[in-house]
Protein backbone atom coordinates (compact mmCIF):
# COMPACT_ATOMS: atom_id res chain seq x y z
CA UNK A 1 0.00 0.00 0.00
CA UNK A 2 1.27 3.47 -0.81
CA UNK A 3 0.87 6.66 1.26
CA UNK A 4 -2.52 8.38 1.07
CA UNK A 5 -3.13 12.02 1.91
CA UNK A 6 -6.35 13.85 2.72
CA UNK A 7 -5.86 17.26 1.18
CA UNK A 8 -9.20 18.99 1.34
CA UNK A 9 -12.80 18.72 2.44
CA UNK A 10 -16.14 20.45 2.66
CA UNK A 11 -19.31 20.11 4.70
CA UNK A 12 -22.77 21.52 4.10
CA UNK A 13 -24.46 23.16 7.04
CA UNK A 14 -26.24 20.30 8.83
CA UNK A 15 -29.82 21.24 9.46
CA UNK A 16 -33.26 19.83 10.10
CA UNK A 17 -34.38 20.24 6.49
CA UNK A 18 -33.00 21.52 3.20
CA UNK A 19 -36.09 21.91 1.01
CA UNK A 20 -34.26 24.61 -0.96
CA UNK A 21 -31.98 22.11 -2.73
CA UNK A 22 -32.05 18.51 -3.90
CA UNK A 23 -29.56 16.23 -2.21
CA UNK A 24 -27.35 16.39 -5.29
CA UNK A 25 -27.08 20.16 -4.98
CA UNK A 26 -26.36 19.89 -1.26
CA UNK A 27 -23.52 17.46 -2.06
CA UNK A 28 -22.25 20.02 -4.55
CA UNK A 29 -21.97 22.61 -1.77
CA UNK A 30 -19.54 20.36 0.08
CA UNK A 31 -17.78 19.30 -3.13
CA UNK A 32 -17.32 22.87 -4.36
CA UNK A 33 -15.98 23.94 -0.96
CA UNK A 34 -13.37 21.17 -1.03
CA UNK A 35 -12.25 22.18 -4.52
CA UNK A 36 -12.13 25.89 -3.72
CA UNK A 37 -10.11 25.21 -0.58
CA UNK A 38 -7.22 24.03 -2.75
CA UNK A 39 -7.73 26.93 -5.14
CA UNK A 40 -8.79 24.90 -8.15
CA UNK A 41 -11.79 25.49 -10.35
CA UNK A 42 -14.57 22.97 -10.77
CA UNK A 43 -13.39 22.21 -14.32
CA UNK A 44 -9.75 21.83 -13.31
CA UNK A 45 -10.52 19.40 -10.51
CA UNK A 46 -13.01 17.36 -12.49
CA UNK A 47 -10.38 16.84 -15.19
CA UNK A 48 -7.85 15.57 -12.64
CA UNK A 49 -9.92 13.42 -10.30
CA UNK A 50 -9.80 9.72 -11.18
CA UNK A 51 -13.09 8.70 -9.61
CA UNK A 52 -15.20 8.69 -6.51
CA UNK A 53 -16.86 6.71 -3.76
CA UNK A 54 -20.35 7.73 -2.69
CA UNK A 55 -22.16 7.05 0.55
CA UNK A 56 -25.73 7.25 1.70
CA UNK A 57 -27.50 4.98 4.09
CA UNK A 58 -31.12 4.59 3.21
CA UNK A 59 -32.95 4.24 -0.06
CA UNK A 60 -36.11 4.71 2.02
CA UNK A 61 -35.30 8.31 2.92
CA UNK A 62 -34.66 9.41 -0.65
CA UNK A 63 -37.31 7.07 -2.11
CA UNK A 64 -34.81 6.92 -4.95
CA UNK A 65 -32.78 3.85 -5.77
CA UNK A 66 -29.31 4.49 -7.17
CA UNK A 67 -29.39 7.97 -5.70
CA UNK A 68 -25.59 8.09 -5.72
CA UNK A 69 -25.35 8.07 -9.49
CA UNK A 70 -27.57 11.14 -9.54
CA UNK A 71 -25.03 12.89 -7.33
CA UNK A 72 -22.21 11.59 -9.52
CA UNK A 73 -23.77 13.05 -12.67
CA UNK A 74 -24.76 16.30 -10.92
CA UNK A 75 -21.11 16.75 -9.91
CA UNK A 76 -20.04 16.19 -13.51
CA UNK A 77 -18.06 13.09 -12.56
CA UNK A 78 -19.54 10.76 -15.18
CA UNK A 79 -18.15 8.64 -16.81
CA UNK A 80 -15.40 8.22 -14.18
CA UNK A 81 -15.51 5.12 -11.97
CA UNK A 82 -17.57 5.19 -8.78
CA UNK A 83 -19.58 3.03 -6.46
CA UNK A 84 -21.95 3.54 -3.59
CA UNK A 85 -21.16 1.98 -0.23
CA UNK A 86 -23.60 1.38 2.59
CA UNK A 87 -23.11 0.15 6.12
CA UNK A 88 -25.72 1.79 8.35
CA UNK A 89 -24.39 4.56 10.55
CA UNK A 90 -20.83 3.69 9.52
CA UNK A 91 -21.58 4.40 5.87
CA UNK A 92 -19.52 7.58 5.81
CA UNK A 93 -16.58 5.96 7.59
CA UNK A 94 -16.68 3.05 5.19
CA UNK A 95 -16.78 5.48 2.26
CA UNK A 96 -13.67 7.23 3.56
CA UNK A 97 -11.86 3.91 3.87
CA UNK A 98 -12.97 2.75 0.40
CA UNK A 99 -11.56 5.95 -1.07
CA UNK A 100 -8.37 5.31 0.89
CA UNK A 101 -8.20 1.80 -0.58
CA UNK A 102 -8.71 3.13 -4.11
CA UNK A 103 -5.68 5.37 -3.70
CA UNK A 104 -3.51 3.12 -1.52
CA UNK A 105 -3.91 0.24 -3.95
CA UNK A 106 -2.83 2.33 -6.92
CA UNK A 107 -6.23 2.13 -8.58
CA UNK A 108 -6.61 5.90 -8.40
CA UNK A 109 -4.24 8.79 -7.80
CA UNK A 110 -7.01 11.18 -6.81
CA UNK A 111 -10.31 10.04 -5.37
CA UNK A 112 -13.14 12.08 -3.92
CA UNK A 113 -15.36 10.60 -1.22
CA UNK A 114 -18.76 12.23 -0.90
CA UNK A 115 -21.79 11.37 1.17
CA UNK A 116 -25.22 12.66 2.03
CA UNK A 117 -28.52 11.91 3.68
CA UNK A 118 -31.89 13.58 3.29
CA UNK A 119 -33.85 12.63 6.39
CA UNK A 120 -36.37 15.46 6.39
CA UNK A 121 -38.70 14.02 3.77
CA UNK A 122 -40.51 11.93 6.34
CA UNK A 123 -41.70 12.70 9.83
CA UNK A 124 -39.44 11.80 12.72
CA UNK A 125 -41.41 8.72 13.80
CA UNK A 126 -41.38 7.40 10.22
CA UNK A 127 -37.64 8.08 10.08
CA UNK A 128 -37.25 6.08 13.27
CA UNK A 129 -39.12 3.27 11.57
CA UNK A 130 -36.81 3.36 8.53
CA UNK A 131 -33.75 3.28 10.75
CA UNK A 132 -35.23 0.44 12.81
CA UNK A 133 -35.39 -1.62 9.64
CA UNK A 134 -31.64 -1.82 10.11
CA UNK A 135 -32.42 -4.40 12.77
CA UNK A 136 -33.60 -7.96 12.17
CA UNK A 137 -37.07 -7.66 10.63
CA UNK A 138 -38.07 -11.12 11.85
CA UNK A 139 -37.00 -10.89 15.49
CA UNK A 140 -36.09 -7.30 16.45
CA UNK A 141 -38.17 -4.81 14.52
CA UNK A 142 -41.61 -6.38 15.21
CA UNK A 143 -41.01 -6.31 18.97
CA UNK A 144 -40.85 -2.52 18.99
CA UNK A 145 -38.17 -1.51 16.53
CA UNK A 146 -36.59 1.71 17.74
CA UNK A 147 -32.88 2.38 17.83
CA UNK A 148 -33.03 4.68 20.84
CA UNK A 149 -34.69 1.77 22.63
CA UNK A 150 -31.91 -0.60 21.61
CA UNK A 151 -29.24 1.79 22.91
CA UNK A 152 -31.18 2.37 26.11
CA UNK A 153 -31.20 -1.39 26.65
CA UNK A 154 -27.42 -1.41 26.29
CA UNK A 155 -26.93 1.43 28.72
CA UNK A 156 -29.07 -0.13 31.43
CA UNK A 157 -26.72 -3.09 31.27
CA UNK A 158 -23.68 -0.79 31.30
CA UNK A 159 -25.07 1.01 34.34
CA UNK A 160 -25.84 -2.23 36.15
CA UNK A 161 -22.52 -3.83 35.29
CA UNK A 162 -20.22 -0.86 35.92
CA UNK A 163 -22.16 1.66 37.98
CA UNK A 164 -22.30 4.20 35.16
CA UNK A 165 -24.53 7.11 36.20
CA UNK A 166 -27.08 9.38 34.56
CA UNK A 167 -24.89 12.36 35.43
CA UNK A 168 -21.99 10.80 33.53
CA UNK A 169 -24.21 10.36 30.48
CA UNK A 170 -25.45 13.94 30.72
CA UNK A 171 -21.88 15.23 30.97
CA UNK A 172 -21.22 13.96 27.45
CA UNK A 173 -24.22 15.90 26.17
CA UNK A 174 -23.12 19.09 27.92
CA UNK A 175 -19.59 18.73 26.51
CA UNK A 176 -20.60 18.07 22.92
CA UNK A 177 -23.29 20.74 22.75
CA UNK A 178 -20.89 23.29 24.27
CA UNK A 179 -18.24 22.39 21.69
CA UNK A 180 -20.77 22.74 18.87
CA UNK A 181 -21.62 26.22 20.13
CA UNK A 182 -18.44 27.28 18.31
CA UNK A 183 -19.07 25.19 15.18
CA UNK A 184 -21.17 26.98 12.57
CA UNK A 185 -21.81 23.73 10.69
CA UNK A 186 -23.54 22.17 13.68
CA UNK A 187 -27.30 21.78 13.90
CA UNK A 188 -27.64 22.28 17.66
CA UNK A 189 -25.40 24.93 19.20
CA UNK A 190 -26.47 25.04 22.80
CA UNK A 191 -25.06 25.63 26.23
CA UNK A 192 -26.69 23.12 28.52
CA UNK A 193 -26.52 22.06 32.12
CA UNK A 194 -26.66 18.53 33.44
CA UNK A 195 -30.14 19.32 34.71
CA UNK A 196 -31.25 20.45 31.23
CA UNK A 197 -30.27 17.05 29.86
CA UNK A 198 -32.08 15.12 32.56
CA UNK A 199 -35.15 17.39 32.38
CA UNK A 200 -35.53 16.90 28.62
CA UNK A 201 -38.40 14.64 27.51
CA UNK A 202 -37.72 10.97 28.15
CA UNK A 203 -37.34 9.01 24.92
CA UNK A 204 -36.21 5.57 26.08
CA UNK A 205 -35.35 5.24 29.75
CA UNK A 206 -32.84 6.45 30.79
CA UNK A 207 -32.04 8.37 27.59
CA UNK A 208 -33.66 11.77 27.15
CA UNK A 209 -33.96 13.80 23.98
CA UNK A 210 -30.67 15.54 24.81
CA UNK A 211 -28.85 12.20 25.08
CA UNK A 212 -29.68 11.41 21.45
CA UNK A 213 -28.58 12.81 18.10
CA UNK A 214 -31.13 14.33 15.77
CA UNK A 215 -32.03 13.58 12.16
CA UNK A 216 -30.53 15.93 9.63
CA UNK A 217 -30.12 16.85 6.02
CA UNK A 218 -26.52 17.30 4.99
CA UNK A 219 -23.54 16.34 2.90
CA UNK A 220 -19.77 16.15 3.16
CA UNK A 221 -16.90 15.51 0.77
CA UNK A 222 -13.18 14.96 1.08
CA UNK A 223 -10.38 14.59 -1.44
CA UNK A 224 -7.77 11.87 -1.02
CA UNK A 225 -4.68 11.43 -3.16
CA UNK A 226 -1.36 9.67 -3.53
CA UNK A 227 1.97 11.46 -3.85
CA UNK A 228 1.52 11.21 -7.61
CA UNK A 229 -1.98 12.63 -7.29
CA UNK A 230 -0.70 15.47 -5.16
CA UNK A 231 1.88 16.28 -7.83
CA UNK A 232 -0.87 16.36 -10.47
CA UNK A 233 -3.03 18.66 -8.37
CA UNK A 234 -0.16 21.04 -7.69
CA UNK A 235 0.98 21.01 -11.30
CA UNK A 236 -2.50 22.27 -12.15
CA UNK A 237 -2.12 25.09 -9.65
CA UNK A 238 -3.65 23.60 -6.54
CA UNK A 239 -2.62 25.24 -3.28
CA UNK A 240 -2.43 22.27 -0.96
CA UNK A 241 -1.77 23.23 2.64
CA UNK A 242 1.38 22.12 4.40
CA UNK A 243 2.02 20.20 6.52
CA UNK A 244 0.25 17.43 4.69
CA UNK A 245 -2.23 15.16 6.46
CA UNK A 246 -1.68 11.47 5.89
CA UNK A 247 -4.05 8.59 6.60
CA UNK A 248 -1.71 6.32 8.52
CA UNK A 249 -4.03 3.49 9.49
CA UNK A 250 -7.48 2.13 8.97
CA UNK A 251 -9.35 -0.57 10.87
CA UNK A 252 -12.78 -2.10 10.70
CA UNK A 253 -14.72 -4.57 12.82
CA UNK A 254 -18.11 -6.24 12.71
CA UNK A 255 -20.58 -7.92 15.03
CA UNK A 256 -23.89 -9.74 14.87
CA UNK A 257 -26.89 -7.71 13.79
CA UNK A 258 -29.01 -8.85 16.69
CA UNK A 259 -27.85 -7.58 20.08
CA UNK A 260 -29.31 -10.74 21.56
CA UNK A 261 -26.80 -12.81 19.59
CA UNK A 262 -23.67 -11.13 20.95
CA UNK A 263 -21.51 -13.81 22.51
CA UNK A 264 -20.53 -13.83 26.13
CA UNK A 265 -16.87 -14.71 25.77
CA UNK A 266 -14.65 -16.17 28.41
CA UNK A 267 -11.82 -14.25 30.04
CA UNK A 268 -9.24 -16.25 28.08
CA UNK A 269 -10.93 -15.60 24.75
CA UNK A 270 -11.13 -11.90 25.57
CA UNK A 271 -7.41 -11.79 26.33
CA UNK A 272 -6.60 -13.72 23.17
CA UNK A 273 -8.78 -11.82 20.72
CA UNK A 274 -9.78 -8.46 22.10
CA UNK A 275 -7.17 -7.07 24.47
CA UNK A 276 -5.36 -3.96 23.23
CA UNK A 277 -1.58 -4.15 23.46
CA UNK A 278 -1.32 -1.37 26.04
CA UNK A 279 -3.77 -3.26 28.25
CA UNK A 280 -1.51 -6.29 28.41
CA UNK A 281 -0.14 -5.54 31.86
CA UNK A 282 -0.41 -7.47 35.09
CA UNK A 283 -2.53 -4.71 36.59
CA UNK A 284 -5.04 -4.63 33.75
CA UNK A 285 -5.21 -8.40 33.44
CA UNK A 286 -5.98 -8.50 37.12
CA UNK A 287 -8.61 -5.77 36.71
CA UNK A 288 -10.36 -7.74 33.97
CA UNK A 289 -10.03 -10.98 35.93
CA UNK A 290 -11.90 -9.27 38.73
CA UNK A 291 -14.65 -8.17 36.32
CA UNK A 292 -15.05 -11.73 35.07
CA UNK A 293 -15.21 -13.03 38.61
CA UNK A 294 -18.11 -10.64 39.17
CA UNK A 295 -19.97 -12.02 36.14
CA UNK A 296 -18.79 -9.68 33.36
CA UNK A 297 -18.83 -11.29 29.92
CA UNK A 298 -17.52 -9.80 26.70
CA UNK A 299 -18.82 -8.14 24.64
CA UNK A 300 -22.31 -8.71 26.02
CA UNK A 301 -24.65 -5.87 25.14
CA UNK A 302 -22.65 -3.23 27.02
CA UNK A 303 -19.61 -3.16 24.73
CA UNK A 304 -18.93 -2.95 21.02
CA UNK A 305 -16.57 -5.71 19.92
CA UNK A 306 -16.59 -4.25 16.38
CA UNK A 307 -15.30 -0.95 17.75
CA UNK A 308 -12.57 -2.68 19.71
CA UNK A 309 -11.45 -4.71 16.68
CA UNK A 310 -11.57 -1.69 14.36
CA UNK A 311 -9.47 0.27 16.85
CA UNK A 312 -7.01 -2.57 17.31
CA UNK A 313 -6.42 -2.88 13.58
CA UNK A 314 -6.12 0.87 13.01
CA UNK A 315 -3.71 1.29 15.95
CA UNK A 316 -1.58 -1.55 14.69
CA UNK A 317 -1.39 -0.03 11.22
CA UNK A 318 -0.58 3.43 12.57
CA UNK A 319 1.88 2.20 15.21
CA UNK A 320 -0.16 3.42 18.19
CA UNK A 321 0.56 1.65 21.46
CA UNK A 322 -1.02 4.04 24.00
CA UNK A 323 -4.12 5.58 22.39
CA UNK A 324 -4.99 8.05 25.15
CA UNK A 325 -1.57 9.67 25.03
CA UNK A 326 -0.66 9.10 21.38
CA UNK A 327 -3.88 10.38 19.80
CA UNK A 328 -4.43 14.12 20.18
CA UNK A 329 -8.19 14.10 19.56
CA UNK A 330 -10.98 11.77 18.51
CA UNK A 331 -14.09 12.43 16.47
CA UNK A 332 -16.27 9.48 17.41
CA UNK A 333 -19.78 8.31 16.66
CA UNK A 334 -21.80 9.64 19.61
CA UNK A 335 -25.29 8.92 18.30
CA UNK A 336 -26.06 8.55 22.01
CA UNK A 337 -24.26 9.88 25.08
CA UNK A 338 -24.10 6.27 26.20
CA UNK A 339 -22.40 5.13 23.01
CA UNK A 340 -19.70 7.79 23.46
CA UNK A 341 -18.98 6.31 26.89
CA UNK A 342 -19.02 2.77 25.49
CA UNK A 343 -16.68 3.86 22.71
CA UNK A 344 -14.13 5.39 25.10
CA UNK A 345 -13.70 1.84 26.32
CA UNK A 346 -13.69 0.15 22.92
CA UNK A 347 -11.02 2.56 21.68
CA UNK A 348 -8.90 1.96 24.76
CA UNK A 349 -9.03 5.55 26.04
CA UNK A 350 -9.88 3.82 29.31
CA UNK A 351 -10.54 0.24 30.36
CA UNK A 352 -13.88 -1.50 30.00
CA UNK A 353 -16.06 -0.41 32.86
CA UNK A 354 -14.26 2.92 33.35
CA UNK A 355 -16.03 4.91 30.62
CA UNK A 356 -18.38 6.70 32.98
CA UNK A 357 -15.55 7.93 35.16
CA UNK A 358 -13.55 8.92 32.09
CA UNK A 359 -16.51 10.99 30.82
CA UNK A 360 -16.49 13.23 33.91
CA UNK A 361 -12.73 13.28 34.38
CA UNK A 362 -12.16 16.23 32.05
CA UNK A 363 -9.70 14.31 29.91
CA UNK A 364 -12.02 14.30 26.88
CA UNK A 365 -12.81 18.04 26.98
CA UNK A 366 -11.48 20.88 24.82
CA UNK A 367 -9.09 23.19 26.67
CA UNK A 368 -10.23 26.75 27.24
CA UNK A 369 -13.98 26.21 27.08
CA UNK A 370 -16.14 26.91 30.12
CA UNK A 371 -18.50 23.96 30.34
CA UNK A 372 -19.93 24.99 33.68
CA UNK A 373 -18.72 21.69 35.11
CA UNK A 374 -16.29 20.82 37.85
CA UNK A 375 -13.71 18.73 36.00
CA UNK A 376 -10.94 17.19 38.10
CA UNK A 377 -8.36 16.56 35.34
CA UNK A 378 -6.87 18.60 32.51
CA UNK A 379 -7.82 17.69 28.92
CA UNK A 380 -5.67 14.91 27.48
CA UNK A 381 -7.45 13.73 24.36
CA UNK A 382 -10.47 15.86 23.43
CA UNK A 383 -13.32 13.75 22.14
CA UNK A 384 -15.71 15.24 19.61
CA UNK A 385 -14.27 18.74 19.64
CA UNK A 386 -16.62 19.49 16.72
CA UNK A 387 -19.68 18.68 18.84
CA UNK A 388 -20.09 15.18 17.48
CA UNK A 389 -23.30 13.71 16.16
CA UNK A 390 -25.33 14.74 19.18
CA UNK A 391 -24.86 18.41 18.40
CA UNK A 392 -23.76 18.53 14.75
CA UNK A 393 -26.54 16.21 13.58
CA UNK A 394 -26.37 12.86 11.88
CA UNK A 395 -27.20 12.88 8.16
CA UNK A 396 -26.02 9.31 8.07
CA UNK A 397 -24.13 9.00 4.78
CA UNK A 398 -22.35 12.30 5.42
CA UNK A 399 -21.46 11.85 9.08
CA UNK A 400 -18.29 9.78 8.81
CA UNK A 401 -17.00 12.12 6.13
CA UNK A 402 -17.88 15.16 8.23
CA UNK A 403 -15.62 13.67 10.91
CA UNK A 404 -12.82 13.31 8.36
CA UNK A 405 -13.18 16.94 7.27
CA UNK A 406 -13.25 18.32 10.81
CA UNK A 407 -10.24 16.14 11.70
CA UNK A 408 -8.41 17.40 8.63
CA UNK A 409 -9.04 21.01 9.61
CA UNK A 410 -7.78 20.31 13.13
CA UNK A 411 -4.58 18.80 11.77
CA UNK A 412 -4.13 21.64 9.27
CA UNK A 413 -4.65 24.22 12.04
CA UNK A 414 -7.42 25.75 9.93
CA UNK A 415 -10.45 25.38 12.22
CA UNK A 416 -10.50 29.15 12.76
CA UNK A 417 -10.43 29.75 9.03
CA UNK A 418 -13.31 27.41 8.28
CA UNK A 419 -15.42 28.03 11.39
CA UNK A 420 -14.76 31.77 11.66
CA UNK A 421 -13.96 31.03 15.30
CA UNK A 422 -10.78 29.35 16.52
CA UNK A 423 -12.09 28.35 19.95
CA UNK A 424 -12.15 24.68 18.97
CA UNK A 425 -8.71 24.66 17.34
CA UNK A 426 -6.50 22.41 19.44
CA UNK A 427 -2.87 23.28 19.99
CA UNK A 428 -1.14 21.89 16.92
CA UNK A 429 -2.50 18.36 17.13
CA UNK A 430 -0.36 15.81 15.37
CA UNK A 431 -2.67 12.81 15.24
CA UNK A 432 -6.44 12.36 15.21
CA UNK A 433 -8.76 9.38 15.04
CA UNK A 434 -12.17 9.22 13.40
CA UNK A 435 -14.64 6.52 14.38
CA UNK A 436 -17.82 5.62 12.52
CA UNK A 437 -20.37 3.14 13.85
CA UNK A 438 -23.40 1.27 12.53
CA UNK A 439 -26.43 -0.45 13.97
CA UNK A 440 -26.04 -1.69 17.50
CA UNK A 441 -22.32 -2.01 16.79
CA UNK A 442 -22.44 -4.07 13.61
CA UNK A 443 -19.90 -2.24 11.46
CA UNK A 444 -17.34 0.07 13.02
CA UNK A 445 -14.54 1.88 11.22
CA UNK A 446 -11.56 3.64 12.80
CA UNK A 447 -9.20 5.71 10.70
CA UNK A 448 -6.07 7.50 11.87
CA UNK A 449 -5.03 10.82 10.33
CA UNK A 450 -1.66 12.43 11.02
CA UNK A 451 0.03 15.71 10.26
CA UNK A 452 3.34 15.15 8.50
CA UNK A 453 6.21 17.03 10.10
Amino acid at each position, binding site marked *: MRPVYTVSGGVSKFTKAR*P*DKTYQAVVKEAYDYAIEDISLTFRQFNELVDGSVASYFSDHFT*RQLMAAIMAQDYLGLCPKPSHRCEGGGATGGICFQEAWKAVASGYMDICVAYGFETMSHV*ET*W*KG*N*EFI*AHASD*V*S*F*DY*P*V*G*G*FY*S*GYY*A*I*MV*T*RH*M*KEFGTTLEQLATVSVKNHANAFHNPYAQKRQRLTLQDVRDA*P*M*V*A*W*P*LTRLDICVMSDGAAATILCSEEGLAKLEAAGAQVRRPLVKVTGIGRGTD*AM*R*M*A*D*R*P*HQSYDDFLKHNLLPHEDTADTRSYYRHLWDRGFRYPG*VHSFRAGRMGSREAYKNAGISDPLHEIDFVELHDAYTSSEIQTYEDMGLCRYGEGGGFAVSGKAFVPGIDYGLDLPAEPVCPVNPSGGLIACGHPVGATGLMQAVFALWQLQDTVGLHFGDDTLQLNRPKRGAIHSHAGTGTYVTVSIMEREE
Partner: protein
Amino acid sequence: MTDTNSDAKQPETLGGFVVHNLPFPNHLDANTLELLKDMAPVQIEQTYCITYLHSYAQDSPFFAGLTNRVFLGNRDPETGYTYATPRGHDMTTGNRNDWVVFPNEGTIHAFTVCHFGSEEFLPQCPFILILVQFEGADTLFLSRLIGVEPEDASLDWIGMKVKARYLRNAKLKPTDVYFVPAE
Protein backbone atom coordinates in the same frame (compact mmCIF):
# COMPACT_ATOMS: atom_id res chain seq x y z
CA MET B 1 -47.88 33.15 38.94
CA THR B 2 -48.56 31.07 35.80
CA ASP B 3 -45.66 29.10 34.30
CA THR B 4 -44.97 30.18 30.72
CA ASN B 5 -42.86 28.65 27.94
CA SER B 6 -41.81 30.93 25.12
CA ASP B 7 -40.22 27.97 23.28
CA ALA B 8 -43.49 26.02 23.06
CA LYS B 9 -44.19 24.64 19.59
CA GLN B 10 -47.22 23.04 18.00
CA PRO B 11 -46.31 19.51 16.80
CA GLU B 12 -45.61 19.51 13.04
CA THR B 13 -47.78 17.27 10.88
CA LEU B 14 -48.34 16.80 7.18
CA GLY B 15 -51.72 17.26 5.51
CA GLY B 16 -53.62 20.47 4.76
CA PHE B 17 -55.38 21.87 1.69
CA VAL B 18 -54.92 20.59 -1.83
CA VAL B 19 -53.39 23.36 -3.95
CA HIS B 20 -54.18 23.61 -7.65
CA ASN B 21 -52.00 26.54 -8.70
CA LEU B 22 -48.73 28.16 -7.69
CA PRO B 23 -47.61 31.77 -7.78
CA PHE B 24 -45.50 32.48 -10.86
CA PRO B 25 -44.45 35.68 -12.72
CA ASN B 26 -47.14 36.93 -15.11
CA HIS B 27 -44.43 38.05 -17.54
CA LEU B 28 -41.21 36.16 -18.21
CA ASP B 29 -38.18 38.26 -19.03
CA ALA B 30 -34.52 38.23 -18.03
CA ASN B 31 -35.29 39.74 -14.63
CA THR B 32 -38.14 37.44 -13.69
CA LEU B 33 -36.27 34.39 -14.97
CA GLU B 34 -33.33 35.37 -12.79
CA LEU B 35 -35.64 35.69 -9.79
CA LEU B 36 -36.70 32.06 -10.26
CA LYS B 37 -33.30 31.03 -8.89
CA ASP B 38 -34.41 32.34 -5.51
CA MET B 39 -37.90 30.90 -5.63
CA ALA B 40 -39.06 29.09 -2.52
CA PRO B 41 -39.18 25.32 -3.03
CA VAL B 42 -42.32 23.51 -4.06
CA GLN B 43 -42.93 20.60 -1.70
CA ILE B 44 -45.40 17.83 -2.38
CA GLU B 45 -46.63 14.84 -0.40
CA GLN B 46 -46.07 11.39 -1.86
CA THR B 47 -47.40 8.17 -0.38
CA TYR B 48 -45.61 4.87 -0.85
CA CYS B 49 -46.81 1.61 0.61
CA ILE B 50 -46.18 -2.00 -0.22
CA THR B 51 -47.08 -5.46 1.06
CA TYR B 52 -44.24 -7.96 1.40
CA LEU B 53 -44.64 -11.73 1.42
CA HIS B 54 -42.03 -12.35 4.10
CA SER B 55 -40.87 -15.90 4.78
CA TYR B 56 -39.58 -16.99 8.17
CA ALA B 57 -37.92 -19.80 6.23
CA GLN B 58 -35.69 -22.00 8.44
CA ASP B 59 -36.87 -20.08 11.52
CA SER B 60 -40.52 -20.99 10.88
CA PRO B 61 -40.76 -23.71 13.57
CA PHE B 62 -40.13 -21.04 16.20
CA PHE B 63 -43.28 -19.18 15.18
CA ALA B 64 -45.26 -22.39 14.87
CA GLY B 65 -44.07 -23.23 18.38
CA LEU B 66 -45.33 -19.92 19.78
CA THR B 67 -48.79 -20.57 18.40
CA ASN B 68 -48.71 -23.79 20.47
CA ARG B 69 -47.28 -22.13 23.58
CA VAL B 70 -43.87 -23.69 23.10
CA PHE B 71 -40.69 -21.59 23.15
CA LEU B 72 -38.11 -23.14 20.82
CA GLY B 73 -34.43 -22.31 20.57
CA ASN B 74 -31.54 -23.73 18.62
CA ARG B 75 -28.50 -25.74 19.70
CA ASP B 76 -25.35 -26.73 17.90
CA PRO B 77 -25.25 -30.55 17.98
CA GLU B 78 -21.46 -30.59 18.29
CA THR B 79 -20.67 -27.93 20.87
CA GLY B 80 -24.01 -27.49 22.61
CA TYR B 81 -23.89 -23.71 22.05
CA THR B 82 -27.50 -22.67 22.56
CA TYR B 83 -29.33 -19.80 20.90
CA ALA B 84 -32.34 -18.18 22.55
CA THR B 85 -33.14 -16.35 19.30
CA PRO B 86 -33.41 -18.84 16.45
CA ARG B 87 -30.42 -19.31 14.16
CA GLY B 88 -30.33 -22.02 11.53
CA HIS B 89 -26.59 -22.60 11.60
CA ASP B 90 -23.99 -22.20 14.32
CA MET B 91 -21.63 -19.21 14.05
CA THR B 92 -18.54 -21.21 15.06
CA THR B 93 -18.92 -24.67 13.55
CA GLY B 94 -21.23 -23.88 10.65
CA ASN B 95 -23.34 -26.89 11.67
CA ARG B 96 -27.06 -27.05 11.06
CA ASN B 97 -28.55 -26.41 14.51
CA ASP B 98 -31.06 -28.62 16.32
CA TRP B 99 -34.34 -27.37 17.80
CA VAL B 100 -34.65 -27.51 21.57
CA VAL B 101 -37.52 -26.62 23.90
CA PHE B 102 -36.77 -23.73 26.23
CA PRO B 103 -38.12 -23.24 29.75
CA ASN B 104 -40.89 -20.74 30.17
CA GLU B 105 -38.91 -18.79 32.72
CA GLY B 106 -35.88 -16.55 32.47
CA THR B 107 -34.41 -13.37 33.94
CA ILE B 108 -34.15 -9.81 32.68
CA HIS B 109 -30.63 -9.14 31.35
CA ALA B 110 -31.29 -5.54 30.29
CA PHE B 111 -34.33 -3.38 29.53
CA THR B 112 -35.73 0.00 28.56
CA VAL B 113 -39.04 1.80 28.62
CA CYS B 114 -39.84 3.35 25.23
CA HIS B 115 -41.73 6.62 25.62
CA PHE B 116 -41.36 7.33 21.92
CA GLY B 117 -40.77 5.08 18.95
CA SER B 118 -41.26 4.22 15.35
CA GLU B 119 -44.55 5.16 13.76
CA GLU B 120 -45.89 1.62 13.93
CA PHE B 121 -45.41 1.42 17.69
CA LEU B 122 -46.29 4.97 18.78
CA PRO B 123 -49.80 4.01 19.92
CA GLN B 124 -48.26 1.43 22.27
CA CYS B 125 -45.99 3.90 24.11
CA PRO B 126 -44.88 3.61 26.81
CA PHE B 127 -43.85 -0.01 26.37
CA ILE B 128 -41.05 -2.04 27.92
CA LEU B 129 -38.40 -3.90 25.95
CA ILE B 130 -36.32 -6.55 27.69
CA LEU B 131 -33.54 -8.92 26.79
CA VAL B 132 -34.36 -12.24 28.41
CA GLN B 133 -31.63 -14.54 29.68
CA PHE B 134 -32.46 -18.25 29.94
CA GLU B 135 -30.66 -20.79 32.07
CA GLY B 136 -28.33 -22.79 29.84
CA ALA B 137 -28.60 -20.48 26.83
CA ASP B 138 -25.62 -18.61 25.38
CA THR B 139 -27.62 -15.84 23.72
CA LEU B 140 -30.57 -13.66 24.66
CA PHE B 141 -34.11 -12.98 23.41
CA LEU B 142 -35.66 -9.55 22.78
CA SER B 143 -39.21 -9.32 24.03
CA ARG B 144 -41.83 -7.18 25.78
CA LEU B 145 -42.48 -7.02 29.52
CA ILE B 146 -45.85 -6.17 31.03
CA GLY B 147 -47.09 -6.36 34.58
CA VAL B 148 -44.84 -3.59 35.96
CA GLU B 149 -45.40 0.15 35.83
CA PRO B 150 -43.32 1.84 33.11
CA GLU B 151 -42.96 4.88 35.36
CA ASP B 152 -41.24 2.72 37.98
CA ALA B 153 -38.27 1.91 35.72
CA SER B 154 -35.30 0.93 37.82
CA LEU B 155 -32.04 -0.94 37.42
CA ASP B 156 -33.46 -3.29 40.04
CA TRP B 157 -35.51 -4.81 37.22
CA ILE B 158 -32.31 -6.38 35.90
CA GLY B 159 -32.14 -9.90 37.28
CA MET B 160 -35.92 -10.08 37.83
CA LYS B 161 -37.38 -13.51 37.17
CA VAL B 162 -39.92 -13.43 34.37
CA LYS B 163 -42.20 -16.00 32.83
CA ALA B 164 -43.46 -16.36 29.29
CA ARG B 165 -47.04 -15.80 28.28
CA TYR B 166 -48.47 -16.46 24.86
CA LEU B 167 -51.16 -14.75 22.82
CA ARG B 168 -54.25 -16.87 22.44
CA ASN B 169 -54.77 -15.45 18.97
CA ALA B 170 -51.27 -15.66 17.57
CA LYS B 171 -50.19 -13.02 15.08
CA LEU B 172 -47.19 -15.00 13.81
CA LYS B 173 -44.84 -12.34 15.19
CA PRO B 174 -42.14 -12.63 17.86
CA THR B 175 -44.55 -10.72 20.11
CA ASP B 176 -46.76 -13.83 20.25
CA VAL B 177 -44.68 -14.47 23.35
CA TYR B 178 -44.22 -11.81 26.02
CA PHE B 179 -43.10 -11.85 29.62
CA VAL B 180 -44.50 -10.95 33.01
CA PRO B 181 -42.87 -10.99 36.46
CA ALA B 182 -42.63 -14.58 37.66
CA GLU B 183 -43.32 -13.75 41.30
